[in-house]
């Protein structure tokens, strides 16, 4: 009893940097966000995961006061965006989706301009370094590639040196290396005590970065927790994957009858078959038998824990990219 009091006491000292209660945003007949509540602790990477059109951007833009809300309470750094937006903006950095900037300013000039807006900005070269834009310092924005422009937008949020950094789909459109680099940058932010609010529709990104995340779908939060918790809670099964040796309809039906499998799916594009199971050893046994009977060879076999992709599929009945 005493211990739990002590723990909740520590929790109390942990500042909630963002608190949202019952947030609603309705457009004429579309319920973009329909009554969501969440809070973000200081120094954590908070993720909002969901397919396109789920309401992630609407949520972020409402929280930073860029658009009005229909209903609900918002507090950012203990302030209300309705009447203290000016003070809030000085203490946060924001990267919006589809960034546009002054086309004829150079990267350096753009960073310097944005730095001048904040009371204690990060140095321009440090911000550029973090997103690997140093070599494009003297390039005008209109000559940047899509990926570079995107990284510049992230750098502009970093230059604020804000206590909370909002990143709306920061890695969309980046190549795999740039994505990895940006993940490192984001992880470093947390190490420096900065709170990060991140939206993404990449499961791996949420899994890799976020300490705490909510899954949002059609304007409502359908699950919340750490990535591990979410997987454990919603998807205790393991995935057994192997290459499809060219099974036709008949073999598929037979496979589906393996009684230890919870369900199975055929990934036609990648030529793989995935069987989900809570009892991996028995299912593998059944599988080996099945292959012996058919005389095909079992290749590229792997067993893995479920990912957030599997969780999303479980929760909504759709893949996250099916939208």
């Amino acid at each position, binding site marked *: 009893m005493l211990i739990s009091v002590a723990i909740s006491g520590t929790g109390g000292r942990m500042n909630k940097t963002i608190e949202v209660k019952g947030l609603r945003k309705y457009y004429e007949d579309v319920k973009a966000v329909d009554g969501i509540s969440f809070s973000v602790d200081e120094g954590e990477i908070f993720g909002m995961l969901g397919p396109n059109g789920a309401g992630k951007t609407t949520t972020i833009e409402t929280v*930073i006061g*860029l658009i009005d809300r229909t209903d609900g309470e918002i507090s950012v750094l203990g302030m209300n965006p309705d009447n203290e937006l*000016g003070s809030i*903006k*000085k203490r946060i950095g*924001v990267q*919006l989706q*589809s*960034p*546009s*900037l*002054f*086309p*004829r*300013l150079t990267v350096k*000039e753009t960073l*310097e*301009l*944005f730095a*001048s*807006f*904040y*009371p204690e900005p990060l140095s321009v070269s440090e911000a550029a370094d973090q997103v690997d834009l140093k070599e494009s310092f003297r390039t*005008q924005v209109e000559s940047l590639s899509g990926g570079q422009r995107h990284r510049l*937008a992230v750098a502009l949020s970093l230059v*604020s040196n804000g206590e909370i950094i909002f990143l709306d789909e920061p890695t969309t459109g980046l190549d795999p290396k740039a994505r990895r680099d940006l993940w490192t940058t984001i992880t470093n932010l947390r190490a420096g005590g900065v709170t990060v609010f991140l939206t993404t529709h990449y499961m791996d990104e949420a899994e890799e970065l976020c300490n705490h995340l909510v899954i949002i779908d059609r304007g409502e939060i359908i699950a919340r927790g750490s990535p591990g918790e979410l997987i454990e809670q919603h998807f205790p099964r393991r995935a057994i994957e192997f290459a499809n040796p060219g099974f036709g309809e008949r073999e598929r039906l037979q496979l589906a009858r393996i009684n230890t499998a919870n369900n199975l799916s055929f990934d036609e594009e990648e030529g793989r078959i995935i069987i989900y199971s809570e009892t991996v050893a028995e299912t593998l046994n059944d599988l080996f038998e099945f292959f012996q009977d058919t005389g095909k060879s079992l290749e590229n076999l792997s067993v893995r824990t479920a990912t957030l992709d599997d969780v999303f599929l479980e929760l909504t009945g759709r893949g996250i990219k099916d939208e």
Partner: protein
Amino acid sequence: MNRLRIFRKMFLANLKEFFRDRSSLFWMIAFPLIFTFIFGLVFSGGDQATFTIGIATEGSTPVTEGLIEEFREVPTFNVTTGELEGELEELKSGNRRMVLDIPTITAEDVRNRVTSKVKFYYSKGEGETNRALISAIKEIFSGIERGITGTRPLFQLEASPLETRNLTQFDYVMPGILAMALMQLGLFGVFQFMSLRENKVIRGLAVTPLPRETLFESEVALRMLVALIQTFLIVVVGRLVFGVELVGNLFLLAGLVFLGAATFVSMGYMLASFTRSLEGGRNLIQTVQFPMMFLSGIFFPIEMMPNYIRPVVRAIPLTYLGDALRQVMVGFPPKYSLQTNVLILAGWLIFSTILAIRFWKWE
């Protein structure tokens, strides 16, 4: 302090955007200069109107020679003499404005006070100029007659022009070009804002602590700077290349330039606030700009336009800016008083500012 620093940065950013954009440089700087050169070259021949008059005499006598001499002394006339038929041919082909056919007049005729009939030929059309020429010729003849008969004139006209400078057509047009440049600065200048708005740059800035007014103030400050650059260039080219002297007070000129620029800048923002898209805005602004350029009398006097168009002419602000600049820059006779000009421009400034605020769209 902080605000000032942000303003300075924002102003510099706008300045760089402007000077790195070829199309804005062309419309705001090169275009007015090209106009100045074109009009300057077209009108550089001087506009002292001269008329070539052919005089044919049947027989030369001291009296007719004297008459011809009198005509030659009138600076407006370029007198040629020859056979009637030849001169009439020249009239037909447009090389003579008028041909006088003077009969043989002897000293005897004069003494006996014989009336001699002088015929003159001219081409129909161009009625007003012809009427003026005819009365000028009549006046010359009666002057000669008075000289011969010794009658003293009852009235003596003494022309004393108040304006001692010789105003040319270019003097009329040059302030008009400046007025046009200021209009384009205001109306076309807002394209930059509209494109930032359409491309969501303004939206991107909205999430930063940049005060929105600062964004706006820095744009207006840039326009005012460009207005001064335009004025300077047009005045310098006018003076050095075409010899147009500035007669007015420089502070008064600067004041008018600022007022004119402010009026058209706010008209630009007003038009921008009527539309959302860049394309719609561009069409709307061109629809306003083009007729204004030709109906404001900045290139030719309003008197040359038909009556039914005059109300439009009197409604548009460019008319008044052109008139005010003509007065202040080259001392052209006013069409409206300077006060009227300033009041109407200020009225437009206030009117368009109110509408711009009322319909303002940041996004």
